[in-house]
């Protein structure tokens, strides 16, 4: 028999009250963890979608006549551009202060050209791209064939391929240059569908605009990165260009998540307070029931800290159990119960093990914290009073 044995023995007395407390703690922890998992899944969903938005900064030549037209987020609307940016300018973007937030810089030269294939002539949208950078920005592209590698290899949009009856492996001429289709882009719903995309140097040659580009799409790394700062810094290094952030959709979505997050934090805080009060009142009640017993402990030589240890060990055991059960219930709720009840339409709804662990540790701290004062008052019980009252 040692002090922990006493805690264990007393743990199984007044089972009703303790089971009630345990359930309350488990529900609180489960709720907080589930809410967090939900908010986190929403954030991840948006972050993933964010990748699909591709660029979030677009740099165009400064020109009043230029109109950016993008439905939603896709920015492929620049068909004609009166002015161009010097290709050599884009190196400056990498020199900005927040350059570690930049994931890809994809310059484009846009023009039109007459395509001839099997005797059919069509005027098509010709887009010069930097192959590797474009790949990074358009990570959601669904391609058939192989991504262009050589100077004369091109990628064409689904609509363009259909109109011109081009398939992978076909070659066609545009302004006297022979190009080979190596890849067809599945329909994206954007203007990429109508484009012929070739390496930017090739397009520069075809259009007779060496060293020129029509726009630059910049993709920044994360959702929370300082877009305004990036825009400002880029416009500082490229004073003759218009630098714009595309983010409305993202921002709105993020605002919704932020709202949900705030509501969750409020609910979580209230639950924590409620739980703390419940622990406090349960422990206080149990101590006042055990006054006489504690008096005996003190009379037979237990120190004040021995008494505190007995009380806190019991709280620790209940909190530990509620931590374990809370994690278990969260897993069940997130993976089985909620998905079967409601269509959450979220892809990343899962329990973050580290957060679950943190939650369990927190509820143990809460259990000990809320028992601290009752434990101190228990240790101050006067043995003489309890003995005399017998």
């Amino acid at each position, binding site marked *: *028999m*040692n*002090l922990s*044995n*006493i805690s264990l*023995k*007393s743990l199984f*007395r007044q089972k009703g009250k303790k089971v009630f407390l345990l359930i309350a703690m488990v529900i609180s922890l489960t709720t907080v963890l589930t809410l967090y998992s939900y908010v986190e899944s929403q954030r991840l969903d948006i972050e993933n979608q964010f990748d699909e938005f591709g660029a979030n900064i677009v740099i165009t030549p400064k020109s009043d006549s230029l109109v950016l037209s993008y439905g939603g987020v896709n920015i492929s609307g620049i068909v004609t551009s009166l002015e161009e940016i010097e290709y050599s300018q884009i190196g400056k973007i990498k020199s900005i202060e927040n350059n570690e937030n930049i994931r890809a810089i994809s310059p484009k030269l846009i023009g039109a050209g007459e395509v001839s294939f099997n005797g059919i002539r069509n005027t098509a949208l010709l887009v010069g791209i930097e192959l590797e950078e474009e790949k990074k920005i358009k990570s959601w592209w669904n391609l058939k064939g192989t991504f262009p590698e050589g100077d004369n290899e091109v990628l064409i949009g689904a609509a363009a391929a259909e109109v011109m009856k081009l398939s992978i492996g076909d070659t066609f001429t545009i302004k006297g240059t022979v190009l080979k289709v190596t890849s067809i882009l599945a329909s994206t719903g954007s203007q990429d569908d109508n484009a012929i995309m070739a390496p930017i140097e090739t397009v520069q040659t075809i259009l007779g605009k060496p060293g020129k580009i029509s726009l630059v799409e910049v993709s920044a790394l994360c959702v929370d990165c300082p877009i305004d700062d990036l825009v400002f810094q880029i416009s500082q290094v490229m004073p003759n260009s218009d630098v714009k952030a595309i983010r409305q959709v993202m921002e709105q979505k993020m605002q919704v998540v932020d709202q949900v997050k705030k509501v969750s934090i409020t609910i979580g805080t209230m639950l924590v307070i409620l739980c703390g009060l419940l622990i406090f009142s349960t422990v206080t009640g149990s101590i006042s029931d055990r006054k*006489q*017993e504690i008096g*005996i*402990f*003190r*009379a*037979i*030589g*237990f*120190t*004040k*800290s*021995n008494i505190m240890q007995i009380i806190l060990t019991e709280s620790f055991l209940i909190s530990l159990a509620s931590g374990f059960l809370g994690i278990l219930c969260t897993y069940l709720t997130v993976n089985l119960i909620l998905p079967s009840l409601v269509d959450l339409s979220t892809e990343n709804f899962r329990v973050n093990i580290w957060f679950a662990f943190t939650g369990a540790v927190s509820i143990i701290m809460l259990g000990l914290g809320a028992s601290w004062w009752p434990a101190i008052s228990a240790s101050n019980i*006067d*043995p*003489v009073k309890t*003995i*005399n009252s*017998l």
Partner: protein
Amino acid sequence: MYLQLLNISKIFGKGEAQVRALESVGFSIEKGDYVAIHGPSGSGKSTLLTIMAGLQHPSSGKVIVDEISLYEELNNDGLAGFRSNYIGFVFQAFNLLPYLSTLENVLLPMAPVRISSKEKREMAHLALSRVGLTDRAAHLPSQLSGGQQQRAAIARALVNEPGIILADEPTGNLDTETRNDILSLFDDLNKAGHTILMVTHDASHIKAARKSIKITDGHIIEKEVIPRI
């Protein structure tokens, strides 16, 4: 001289409600003594015992045990340690924990002590055998008779090998027959070398007591050394 009380006074409350529970009480106890304290109800017997047990400070005076002045030299933890090491307390109302078995109740005083549980068990079984309860080790207090419960409580007081056993009317809750039973157990324990100080309403109950002290209204009015026959 093992335990010595010097000029102990204890005053409860203030003003009108003031109670002088003990006034200038002094006596000493040798190792192996068997002392009976008796006197009318409210005379201060229990108060005296709690002061001797390191449970409450006297208003004035000293308690000296093994040359340590309890309330001058020991802090709260020190007093707890003193109770644990020097004192075995037997209460009138047994005060066993109802949810622990007899053996566990006897083990209780050793819970904060850092010795192996095997050793603790050996000591607890030894204490139980001294009070003749070996065959009741696994029973809950509710499954024991009053006399057996008090025996278990005495085993609990013995288990730490205390220097002195303080018993506050240990037979108060028992019928005559069981009372004699418990008293002869105390007699036996004293013969086996234990120092015992027992509060009782009637000292004549304690046949084997070597000293008897009578208290009335907080004063010692009679100290008697009973010659052993």
